[in-house]
C-alpha cells in the first residue's frame, strides 16, 4: 500500500502537485489517467525516485520509500516511452546488461524465458536499431518477467501499450495477471482504458489534483 502524504512536486518553476494526498492499493492495478500535461509521467517518475519531492513523503505501508533509495529502487521496475535500450546491442544483450545493472544473477535460460513471455525469442539477436517501435517496447517489457525471480513488488509503467499490437497486449495482460497473483502492484499511466482485461482502480488526475 503506497501512501502519498502532502506531496509537492515541481518541474522547473511549475508546481505539478501541491500538498497532494493519495493512496495506492497493493496487489491491484491503478491506472493514472488525465489530460496531457496533467502530471501522469511526473507522478510515476517521482515515485520511481527520478524526480525529487519538494515536500511530503511517500510510504510503503510504514516505511518511507526514499529513506533507503537503493532498496526502493530494487523493489520496482520503471518503463516509459524511452525504453532504456541501447540501439547498438541486440535484444538479448540489452536484457542481459540491464539485469546485470540491477545486480541480478540470471542464467541465459531465465533471460530467454523472459523474452519468450512477450514472444521476443525469435528476435533476440536483432539489434535494437533494427527493431520497430513495437518490438522495442516488447524488448523493454520483457524485463517484467524477472520480477518473479527477484522479489520486485512494483511496476511503474508509462503508457506501456501504445506501440503494442493486439497479440502483444494479450501477452502483456497475462503478465500483469500473474504479477497481481504474486502480490505485485502495478501503477500505469494510460489513455486507452478499454485494452485491459483486468480490473483496476482509477486515479484520475484531472479530478483529483485540485
Amino acid at each position, binding site marked *: 500500500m503506497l501512501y502519498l502524504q502532502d506531496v509537492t512536486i515541481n518541474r522547473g518553476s511549475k508546481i505539478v502537485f501541491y500538498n497532494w494526498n493519495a493512496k495506492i492499493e497493493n496487489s491491484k492495478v491503478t491506472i493514472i489517467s488525465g489530460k496531457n500535461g496533467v502530471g501522469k509521467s511526473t507522478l510515476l517518475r517521482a515515485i520511481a525516485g527520478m524526480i525529487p519531492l519538494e515536500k511530503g513523503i511517500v510510504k510503503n505501508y510504514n516505511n518511507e520509500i526514499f529513506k533507503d533509495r537503493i532498496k526502493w529502487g530494487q523493489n520496482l521496475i520503471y518503463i516509459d516511452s524511452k525504453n532504456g535500450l541501447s540501439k547498438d546491442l541486440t535484444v538479448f544483450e540489452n536484457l542481459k*546488461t540491464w539485469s546485470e545493472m540491477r545486480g541480478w544473477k540470471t542464467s541465459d535460460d531465465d533471460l530467454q524465458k523472459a523474452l519468450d513471455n512477450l514472444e521476443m525469442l525469435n528476435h533476440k539477436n536483432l539489434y535494437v536499431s533494427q527493431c520497430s517501435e513495437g518490438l522495442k517496447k516488447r524488448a523493454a517489457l520483457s524485463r517484467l518477467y524477472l520480477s518473479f525471480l527477484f*522479489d520486485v513488488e512494483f511496476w511503474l509503467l508509462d503508457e506501456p501499450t501504445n506501440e503494442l499490437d493486439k497479440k502483444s497486449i494479450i501477452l502483456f495482460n497475462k503478465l500483469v495477471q500473474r504479477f497481481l497473483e504474486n502480490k505485485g502492484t502495478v501503477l500505469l499511466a494510460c489513455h486507452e482504458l478499454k485494452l485491459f482485461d483486468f480490473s483496476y482502480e482509477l486515479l484520475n488526475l484531472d479530478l483529483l489534483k485540485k
Partner: protein
Amino acid sequence: MSLQSSFIQIFISHIKREFLINFRSLVDVISIISFMILIVTLFVLGIGPFEEKLALISNAIFWIGLILAIIPSLEKTLQRDYDNGWLDQTITSPTPMELILLSKSLAYWLIVIIPLLISLPLFIVLLNINLKLIPWLLISILVGGLSISLIGIIGSALTLGAKRGNILLPILIIPLIIPILIFGVGISEAVRINESPLGNLFLLIGFTLIYLVISPFISAFLIRIAISR
C-alpha cells in the same frame, strides 16, 4: 530468493557493456582515435618539414589530439545513454550513480588506450618522437588519459539536458584540463632536454587522484539534476 551480484561484479559489468557497445568491429576500434589521427596528421602537414618547430610542439599536439579523442566520444556516449533512458534505469541500480560514472570513465579510458597503443608507432613516426621518450610517454598517456576521461564525464554531464547553451558549457572544463595538459607536455619536455620528468609525473598523478575522487561526485550530482528535468 535473489541472487545478487557484488558491487565489483556490477562495476565490471558496466565496463563490459561499454566495451560491447564500442568494440563491435575492428573498424569501431580504430575509429575511436580516427579524430586524433586526423588532428595530428593535419598539424604535421601544416607545419611542414621543419624538424625543430615540430619537436617543440609535437608533445602539445599529441596531448591535444588525445583530449579531442576522449572527450567527444564520452560526450556522445553519455548523451546517448541519457536520450535512450538507460541513465533513468540506472537510478534503480543497487550501485550508486557515482560508481556507475566512475565505471564509465574507466571504461572509456581503456577503450581509447587500446587503439592508441596499437597506433602509437604511427604517432612516433608522424611526430618524430624520440625513442628515449617512449616509456615516459606511455606512462603519461596512461595516467593523463584517465584524468581526461574523468574530466570528460563532468563536461558531458554538464551538457546533458542543456538546451542551446551547450556550446559554451565545455569551456567550463578547461580549468580542469589545463593542469593535465601542462604536466603531460611537461613530462615530454623534461625528457627532451634531459631533465628528470618525475616532478611533472608526480603532479600529473596527483591531479589524477584528485579527479578520481571529485569527478564521480560532481558528475553524479549533475546527472541527477538532468534526470529530474
